[in-house]
């Protein structure tokens, strides 16, 4: 119990004294996971909407794959991204293994199916007649898609939160592709693992608390935007 209290004290100490290292780690976590989430939003919303609005042979299989991808284990992603990014691997020429960029890539791979799956479900959940109505009112196809996405924005914000929550809390892929390099590719989760290994439980608890606070504030902001309008 003392340990937890010490950890909480340490967390506030580190936050209020603006400890340079902890601040750097926190900002990097935010930047990396934020960028990964944004990439996953672009791919996920486009693919999710496209699949939701189209009918083609093998569609069931595609949807099943997307839904499976929503539970993609981060370590599996980490392993494959590492192998691809090795110097002598297929994408070795990029020379991005053990960089924050590699973490962004791995996290985007993790978050994209989550966003795609939720988008797919929410667009498909819209009443079918809405589409016909929009088209009947003379909208172009692009306008129709844009209106549908806007109509589904409430669950889409849930997709953002699920995607971001999935990657900011992820450790397996980050440590494998980022290498947990001090002052460079060390994020909150990998730092927590390392400090636990070093027996610095107070710092580990402090980092965990910072991670929770960060998650909370991001989600609070997103919820604020999401709930501005009451669902009809």
């Amino acid at each position, binding site marked *: 119990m003392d340990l937890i209290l010490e950890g909480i004290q340490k967390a506030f100490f580190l936050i209020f004294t603006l400890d340079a290292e902890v601040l750097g780690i926190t900002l990097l976590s935010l930047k990396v996971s*934020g*960028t990964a989430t*944004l*990439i996953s*939003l*672009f791919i996920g919303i486009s693919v999710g909407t496209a699949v939701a609005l189209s009918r083609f042979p093998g569609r069931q299989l595609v949807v099943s794959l997307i839904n499976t991808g929503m539970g993609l284990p981060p370590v599996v992603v980490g392993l494959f991204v590492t192998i691809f990014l*090795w*110097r*002598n691997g297929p994408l*070795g020429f990029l*020379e*991005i*293994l*053990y*960089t*924050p*960029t590699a973490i*962004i890539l791995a996290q985007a791979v993790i978050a994209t199916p989550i966003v795609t799956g939720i988008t797919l479900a929410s667009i498909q959940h819209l009443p079918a007649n809405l589409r016909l109505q929009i088209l009947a009112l003379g909208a172009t196809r692009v306008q129709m898609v844009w209106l549908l996405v*806007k109509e589904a*924005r409430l669950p889409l914000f849930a997709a953002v939160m699920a995607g971001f929550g999935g990657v900011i809390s992820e450790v397996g892929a980050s440590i494998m592709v980022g*290498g*947990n*390099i*001090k002052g*460079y*590719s060390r994020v909150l989760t990998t730092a927590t693992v*390392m400090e*636990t*290994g*070093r*027996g610095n*439980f107070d710092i580990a608890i402090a980092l965990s608390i910072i991670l929770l606070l960060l998650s909370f504030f991001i989600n609070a902001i997103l919820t604020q*935007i999401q709930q*501005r*309008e009451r669902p009809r």
Partner: protein
Amino acid sequence: MIKWSAKRGFTAMMIAALFLIGMALPACAAGPAQKNLILATTTSTQDSGLLDVLIPVFEKRTGYFVKTIAVGSGQAMAMGQKGEADVLLVHSPDAEKKFVAEGSGVNRMIVMHNDFIVVGPPADPAAIKGAKSTVEAFKKIAAAGSLFLSRGDNSGTHAKEKGIWKAAGINPEGQKWYQETGLGMGQTLNVAAEKKGYTLADRGTWLSLQAKLGLPILKEGDPILLNVYHVIAVNPAKWPKVNADGAKAFSDFMLSAETQGIVKTFGVEKYGGPLFFPDAGKPEYD
């Protein structure tokens, strides 16, 4: 009005997203790649904090950017075998010799040593404290069926532990009292403390954790427990992409008088004794 702002929020987010991705792209391209040096090393050098002291000095002096990947010695050498690391700092002599003999590594140089210790619960249920040797202590643990935590990760410590079991003529794998954590040294010590088990540890990591562990040293000072660290460059003839100049610079740095001086005094102030003993230029122990 309210509805409009919600929509605006959504659009603003999309624009912000585009903007951020635009910002991230140039960041990807930054940083000259040839300046990067991948150091694959053991968890003990990172968990003890030694590298946090040495790496910044090296970077400042040479301008290289060191990517320290702290894994077990076994994995470090596996990275070297694939040309995915430039230089290794490891402590698994038998595997290292094989690594050099097969042509994966060059210029293997002795850097420093400390020793392994056998730690366990203060009650010492297998009564290993009176054992004449480490091998005998391991026999006693097996005979008593007391819990033993193995790293189980092909690290240098794990290799040493397997060597001692072999010398004792015991195959512990699959035994109920023998558990493999598959974790680093620090974490394995924590598991041993929590489960009141015995384990083999390097003194450096144990010293840096001992205040919180409650796992006293039960066996030490046996020649079999010597723990030697070497620096090895990955063979550039085999892997052209390896940063050979950087590896050479790192080797030279580790063997320099100044670095050896830092190694000698590292941890003295905090733990009351050195964690590592410098060995550069000395003959091999075996």
